[in-house]
């Protein structure tokens, strides 16, 4: 064995290198959120600042009152910077006026934002606001979903630090059985932007509010250790909103040198050091359950529905191989056969429905983007009239291919009652690899894109009777990149989309998806239990 000169040099220089840790350096203006580069310019320019309100609701599914809560907290936070903060009345009035002038910023057919109209309204409202209130700058607040880095039992992002399990477990559990992995968790942050009167971005910084998912092996279920905080329980915590606002305004209040000096020490500047015990308890997370499939009791459906119109499979941008559509239709007929329904294949139903939507000008309010139930009812009534089925159908069954996400644990992905190994794309065999299973712990946990069949049964008035999904196959393949930075080995998840030409070719998976998607409708609870037992026996064999 030879000892290289380089290895001897290593030995000799160890003592020196141990003492030669470079001192920490203050962050650059760009890193602190000043894209133009000069903090002093921004503070010198922005004295009278208009506060544009947060959109309501701030995120889909979140309580609309949360926006007002953030607006209320934002004013003192900006005043602490030294700004004179002007109320948003002038902005709101201009926004409403321009929104009406352009006929609404939402697409009435889809309920989505019309980008060009939205931009025109926002831009116009901001200009009016600046001009009327003689503003130097505008502060724009928005709430956004983001990712928190998880290391062991802690998660941190955008100046926020939290326990990755949301504090659901005691200190004793953390000590003896805490998580040791790393990864990312969904989180929510507040973004503060300062714009000049011509909408040039002068400053932008995010402040973390709270986690949207927790990682908690002690409260997870068989499928996943991730727990989700219901959207309705997000943004109810004034203390965490305040922490986010402090984190977002720190570079405006303190110099880079002050921020550097306070790192790891002063929670008034380094908000990750705010002890979680000083904050209110976090809302509990819950395992993601399958949503109920039957929107009315099954017996009621069976007594009122005898004849259904079956719409052609909606592909939603997928390009399945030839014969797929016909096979799915045949499987639907087969699965529903025990119900003795008369199933009428109506090829024109999607076109007729689209024409009916266009005829009423869409069923979303163009000013607010909210669904108009009355218009939806009209659309369905008109669709049924135009179809003029004799005798009329009691319900419409729409089937579509949809993109969704599958939760994977150790590479084994499960979603919509389907399973697939995300690393190999083969079948899942529960258990570690040493015992013949397909679990690979380097894959950790996470989400991977998947495909499902979605079925939706509606009555002639448009009321949903039944809605369910059956998983087909994964749309991505997971791979693990191993990186060693002494003394830690890190496994990075990487995803590659599968080629469109290799999808939907597995007849068994296609059949399973249809069977699962219609199971709660076609089978009684007793039949479902019997089917599950039979499946378990088959798996054991």
């Amino acid at each position, binding site marked *: 064995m030879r*000892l290289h000169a380089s290895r001897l040099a290593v030995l000799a*220089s160890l003592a020196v290198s141990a003492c030669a840790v470079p001192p920490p350096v203050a962050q650059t203006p760009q890193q602190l959120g000043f894209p133009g580069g000069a903090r002093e310019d921004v503070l010198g320019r922005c004295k009278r600042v208009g506060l544009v309100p947060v959109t309501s609701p701030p995120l889909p599914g979140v309580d609309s009152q949360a926006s007002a809560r953030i607006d209320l907290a934002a004013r003192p936070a900006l005043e602490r910077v030294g700004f004179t903060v002007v109320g948003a009345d002038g902005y709101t009035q201009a926004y409403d006026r321009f929104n009406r002038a352009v006929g609404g910023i939402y697409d009435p057919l889809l309920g989505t934002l019309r980008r060009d109209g939205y931009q*025109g309204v926002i831009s116009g409202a901001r200009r009016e606001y600046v001009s009327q209130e003689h503003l130097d700058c505008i502060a724009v607040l928005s709430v956004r979903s983001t990712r928190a880095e998880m290391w062991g039992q802690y998660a941190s992002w955008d100046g926020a630090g939290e326990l990755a399990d949301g504090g659901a477990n005691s200190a004793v559990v953390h000590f003896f059985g805490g998580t040791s992995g790393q990864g990312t968790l969904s989180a929510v942050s507040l973004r503060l932007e300062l714009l*000049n009167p*011509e909408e040039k971005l002068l400053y932008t910084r995010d402040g973390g509010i709270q986690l949207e998912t927790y990682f908690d092996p002690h409260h997870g279920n068989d499928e996943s250790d991730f727990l989700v905080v219901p959207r309705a329980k997000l943004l109810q915590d004034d203390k965490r909103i305040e922490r986010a606002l402090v984190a977002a305004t720190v570079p405006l209040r303190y110099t880079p040198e002050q921020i550097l000096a306070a790192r790891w020490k002063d929670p008034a500047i380094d908000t990750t050091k705010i002890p979680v015990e000083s904050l209110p308890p976090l809302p509990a997370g819950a395992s993601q359950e399958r949503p109920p499939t039957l929107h009315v009791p099954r017996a009621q459906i069976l007594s009122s529905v005898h004849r259904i119109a079956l719409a052609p499979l909606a592909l939603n941008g997928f390009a399945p191989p030839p014969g797929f559509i016909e096979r799915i239709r045949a499987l639907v007929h087969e699965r529903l056969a025990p119900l003795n329904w008369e199933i009428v294949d109506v090829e024109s139903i999607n076109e007729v429905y689209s024409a009916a939507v266009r005829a009423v000008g869409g069923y979303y309010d163009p000013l607010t983007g909210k669904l108009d139930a009355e218009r939806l009812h009209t659309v369905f009534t008109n669709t049924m009239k135009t179809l003029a089925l004799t005798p009329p159908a009691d319900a419409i069954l729409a089937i579509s291919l949809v993109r969704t996400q599958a939760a994977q644990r150790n590479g084994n992905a499960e979603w919509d009652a389907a399973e697939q190994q995300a690393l190999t794309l083969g079948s899942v065999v529960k258990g570690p690899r040493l015992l013949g299973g397909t679990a690979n712990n*380097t894959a950790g946990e996470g989400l991977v894109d998947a495909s499902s069949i979605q079925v939706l049964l509606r009555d002639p008035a448009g009321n949903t009777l039944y809605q369910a999904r059956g998983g087909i196959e994964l749309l991505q393949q997971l791979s693990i990149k191993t990186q060693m930075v002494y003394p830690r080995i890190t496994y990075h998840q990487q995803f590659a989309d599968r080629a469109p030409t290799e999808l939907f070719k597995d007849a068994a998976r296609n059949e399973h998806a249809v069977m699962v998607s219609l199971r709660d409708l076609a089978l009684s609870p007793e039949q479902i239990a019997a089917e599950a037992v039979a499946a378990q026996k088959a798996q054991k064999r």
Partner: protein
Amino acid sequence: MWRANAVALAVLGVILAQTATAADDSLSDERVEASYNSGTAFVHHAGLDAYLRQVVHRLQAANSDAPAGSLRIHVLSNDLPYAFILGNGAGYITTGLLERLDDEQQLAAIIAMSLAPLVRRDQQTLTAENRQRMLRNFLPNLLVITATAGLGAPMMAKADTKARAEREDQAQTASDAVALHWLASVGYQPRAGPAALRRLRELLLTEQRAGSNDLSDLEHLAARADRLDQSDAVNETPVEGAPIDPAGSFDRFSLYFALNQAAADLDGHAVSVVPILDRVEARRGETGYTAYLRAELLRRDSADASSVPVAIAAYEKCVSHADAPESCFRELGLLYRRSGDSARARESFLAYLAHAPKAADAPIIRTYLENP
């Protein structure tokens, strides 16, 4: 000593773990290609694909080892220059590369320099060498790590990384020389290779951009260009061949992506807008769109009243072009309105509505006509 043993075991564990997971690390090239092709960054443009096919065919003519027929180059949208070719012949360059190169000669050079390592199987050679080196050094390294109770490990890793980087540079230089020879044998200038690398470096510096890949790491670009200059292949005389890019396709695509980049940079990286526009105008002269982008840049900085006249002058210049974008008239009207010149504001708003009567914000502009 217990600690040293633990470290030694940990190192052994790492090697075993890496071996155990190696099977999961690789994705098929077909899958990676499918992922790029269905991604949002993929640029769908039949004319551009056809042009790149033409360049590739010309290069392949010089090289019987190239994956004849299966090599295909597509474009991905990215502000930094990238060029790489997968093992199955699917190659990608970025808009950030196309917009910064001077001509087809430089483009062909970059593609050839990406193809040569594939043909020479550099990746496989380097992987085999790394494996051999790891096995050869395992026991000596273990001894050092054990003797230093683990403290020597980071420095050992650093030395290993340096050795790998040096070997990679050697392999790249050899492959680049092969690429330059191919260029000469199909009528391209071999000097376009180092020229392309220097051009990328110069423009990235001017735009205050840098990355960490082969074509965006400023230090690496300079060193690689210097190494190429020392190669014999750079002095080869190109053979007489078909004329290069007679239809001027390269310029059309390159300028198009440069203008897209300048527009995107207005909001996020304003420092690069003027250098990009200067470059475009040097090749094609000022147009309504370049004048518009310059005016937009000035408007964003016209926060105080004193700077408004400068912005107005820029938009006036923009609307003087026959091909002025309609937004020029709108913004000019808004600036006149801001400066209190309602007559000129009205004139500009009317011109905007005449150019874009169905624009989404046309109703808003009409309210300005009603309430000047």
